[in-house]
C-alpha cells in the first residue's frame, strides 16, 4: 500500500470521473464525487504525514527507472499541495452539489478531471508529464468556466482558451529546447546535467526562461495577468473557488524549478526582473481592488494580489522566505476561494442587487459576520491567518536586497485592501434599500452555507494551528532548498534499482 501511495491522489479522482460518466444520474454523481473527494482528503492527509519524515517517495510509472521513465515524486511540498487541493475540491464540490451542477451537463466528471490535473501537476517529477497534467487541468477548467452558460462566460472563455493555447505552445517549445540541449526532461536529471559541461548554456538558459514565462502566465505575473480578473469573475462561484488554486500551480512550479534546477546551475536567471514584475503585479492588483464594483470581481483581484505577493518570493532563493510564502499560500488560497463562495451566497438573496456594492436588501446576519471575519483575514488584520502570513513574509523579506521596495508595496497594498473592503462592506451591508422586484425568499441550501462557513472558518483555524503549520512549512522549504537531495533521491533510487536489475 505504501509503495503505491504516491499515485493514489491521481487515481482516486480519475476513478471517480470514470464512475460518474457511467452513472449518468445526478444524485449518483454527487455521492460518488463527494465520497471520492473525502477519500482524497484522507489519502492526501496520510501522504502529508508520511512525507514529514523527510524522505522522497519516488513512484516510477510502469517501473521504468527515473531518467528513462516518468516518475512521481512525493516530498513535503507535493503532499501538502495535494492536501490543499483536496480540501478546496471537497468544499467547492459541496457548494456545487446544491444546484449549480444542474445548470449544464457533465459537471461532476469534469470537476474530478480538474482535480486529476491539479494533483498530477503537483506530484510529477517530469517536465513533459507536467505539461500533460497542465493540459488536463486546463481542458477541464475551460469546460468548468463555461459551465452555466451565458455571454459573459463565453466571452471570458475565448480569451482564456486562446491565451492558454499560446502558453501551451510556448511550453512545448521550451521542452523541445530542453530536450535538444540537455537530452532529458526529468527535472532531477535536468538539474544534474545542467551542472555538467557539454551543453550550450545559452540555449539552456533560453529554455528555462521560456519555461518560467509559461509558469508566470499561469500564475498571473503582470504583463501576463490581464486575463485573470475577468476570467475568474465570470466563472460560477464553486468553479472560481477551485480556480483559486490554479494560479498557485504556476507559483509552485516556478518555486520548484528555481530551487531544484536553477539555483545550482543558473542562479541569476530570476534576478531583478521577477521581483520587479511581482511588485508591479501587486500594485496593479491593489488598484484593481479599488475599482471592483461587485464582490466576485473584488475576489478575482484579491487572487491576483496574493499571486503577486507570492511571486515576490522565488527570486529570493531563501528557505525562510519560502517557508513564509508557503504559509501565506495556504492562507490566501483558502481566503480567495471563500470570497467567491461568499459572493455566490450573498448574491442569492439580494435580487437584482446581487453581489454589487450598492444599496439593496442586506444579507443575513451570519453572512455579515462571515464577511467581517473574511475581510479581516484578507486585509491582514490580527488575529487571523492573513496577519500571521503577512507578518512572516515581512519579517523574512526584510533582509533581502529589494526589501525596502517590497515592504512599502506590501504594506500599502494591505492598507488599500482594508480601505476597499471597509467601503464595499458598508455599501453592501449597511445601505438597505427596497428593490423594484422583491428578492427571492427561502433558506440558503445547507450545502452552500456549510461550504462557505468552512472556508471562512479557515482564517481563524489557520491562525490557531499556525505553529505546527509554520513548522511544517519551514521543514518543507528547507527540503525544497536542498536540491542535491532531490536529485540524489530521484536518480539514486533508480540507479540502485537498475544496478540490482543488472545483477539479477
Amino acid at each position, binding site marked *: 500500500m505504501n509503495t503505491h501511495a504516491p499515485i493514489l491522489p491521481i487515481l482516486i479522482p480519475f476513478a471517480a470521473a470514470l464512475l460518474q460518466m457511467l452513472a449518468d444520474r445526478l444524485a449518483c454523481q454527487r455521492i460518488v464525487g463527494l465520497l471520492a473527494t473525502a477519500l482524497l482528503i484522507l489519502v492526501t492527509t496520510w501522504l502529508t504525514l508520511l512525507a514529514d519524515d523527510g524522505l522522497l517517495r519516488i513512484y516510477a510509472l510502469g517501473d521504468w527507472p527515473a531518467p528513462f521513465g516518468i516518475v512521481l515524486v512525493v516530498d513535503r511540498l507535493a503532499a501538502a499541495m495535494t492536501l490543499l487541493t483536496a480540501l478546496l475540491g471537497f468544499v467547492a464540490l459541496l457548494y456545487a452539489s446544491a444546484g449549480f451542477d444542474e445548470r449544464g451537463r457533465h459537471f461532476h466528471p469534469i470537476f474530478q478531471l480538474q482535480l486529476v490535473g491539479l494533483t498530477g501537476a503537483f506530484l510529477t517529477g517530469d517536465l513533459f508529464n507536467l505539461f500533460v497534467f497542465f493540459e488536463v487541468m*486546463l481542458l477541464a477548467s475551460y469546460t468548468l468556466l463555461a459551465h452555466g452558460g451565458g455571454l459573459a462566460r463565453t466571452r471570458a472563455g475565448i480569451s482564456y482558451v486562446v491565451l492558454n493555447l499560446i502558453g*501551451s505552445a510556448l511550453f512545448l517549445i521550451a521542452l523541445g529546447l530542453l530536450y535538444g540541449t540537455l537530452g532529458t526532461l526529468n527535472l532531477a536529471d535536468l538539474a544534474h546535467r545542467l551542472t555538467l559541461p557539454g551543453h550550450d548554456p545559452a540555449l539552456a538558459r533560453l529554455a528555462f526562461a521560456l519555461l518560467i514565462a509559461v509558469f508566470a502566465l499561469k500564475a498571473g505575473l503582470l504583463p501576463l495577468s490581464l486575463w485573470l480578473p475577468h476570467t475568474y469573475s465570470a466563472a460560477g462561484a464553486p468553479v472560481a473557488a477551485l480556480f483559486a488554486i490554479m494560479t498557485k500551480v504556476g507559483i509552485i512550479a516556478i518555486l520548484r524549478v528555481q530551487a531544484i534546477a536553477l539555483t545550482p546551475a543558473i542562479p541569476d536567471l530570476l534576478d531583478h526582473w521577477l521581483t520587479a514584475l511581482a511588485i508591479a503585479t501587486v500594485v496593479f492588483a491593489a488598484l484593481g481592488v479599488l475599482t471592483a464594483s461587485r464582490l466576485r470581481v473584488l475576489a478575482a483581484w484579491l487572487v491576483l494580489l496574493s499571486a503577486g505577493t507570492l511571486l515576490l518570493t522565488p527570486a529570493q532563493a531563501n528557505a525562510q522566505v519560502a517557508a513564509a510564502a508557503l504559509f501565506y499560500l495556504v492562507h490566501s488560497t483558502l481566503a480567495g476561494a471563500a470570497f467567491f463562495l461568499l459572493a455566490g451566497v450573498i448574491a442569492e438573496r439580494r435580487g437584482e442587487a446581487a453581489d454589487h456594492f450598492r444599496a439593496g436588501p442586506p444579507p443575513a446576519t451570519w453572512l455579515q459576520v462571515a464577511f467581517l471575519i473574511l475581510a479581516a483575514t484578507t486585509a491582514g488584520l490580527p488575529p487571523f491567518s492573513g496577519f500571521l502570513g503577512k507578518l512572516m513574509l515581512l519579517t523574512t523579506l526584510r533582509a533581502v536586497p529589494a526589501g525596502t521596495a517590497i515592504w512599502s508595496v506590501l504594506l500599502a497594498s494591505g492598507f488599500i485592501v482594508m480601505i476597499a473592503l471597509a467601503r464595499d462592506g458598508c455599501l453592501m451591508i449597511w445601505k438597505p434599500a427596497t428593490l423594484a422586484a422583491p428578492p427571492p425568499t427561502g433558506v440558503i441550501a445547507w450545502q452552500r452555507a456549510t461550504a462557505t462557513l468552512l472556508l471562512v472558518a479557515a482564517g481563524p483555524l489557520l491562525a490557531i494551528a499556525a505553529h505546527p503549520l509554520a513548522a511544517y512549512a519551514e521543514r518543507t522549504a528547507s527540503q525544497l532548498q536542498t536540491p542535491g537531495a532531490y536529485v540524489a533521491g530521484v536518480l539514486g533510487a533508480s540507479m540502485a534499482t537498475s544496478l540490482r536489475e543488472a545483477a539479477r
Partner: protein
Amino acid sequence: MEAMLAIAVGVLTACGVFLILRARTFPVLLGLTLLSYAVNLFLFASGRLQVGAPPLIRAGAAYADPLPQALVLTAIVIGFGMTAYLAILALRSLAESGGDHVDAVSTEDARQ
C-alpha cells in the same frame, strides 16, 4: 534539410502569430493551428534530424531518437482536442452574441 525545416517552422510561426492577432475568432483558430504545427515540427527536430532511420533500436542499424516522436504524438492529440473545443466555443459565442469578434461584442457594437 536543417535549413528547410527551420524556414518552415519560422514561416508557420510567423503566419500563426499574425493570424492570432486578428480580431475574429476564425483567423485566431487557424493561427493557433498553424502555431501548433510549427511547435510539432520544432519538437520533432529536437531529437536531431536523420534520414532513413526508424525509431527502433536494432543491432547494427542506425536509429532515430524515439522520444521526440512520442512527445509530438502527445502534443498533436492534446492540441487537436483543444482546437476542437475552441471551435465549439467560438460557434457558441457566434450564436450568443451574433458576431465572431474575439471579445464577443455583437457586430453592431463593434461598428459603433
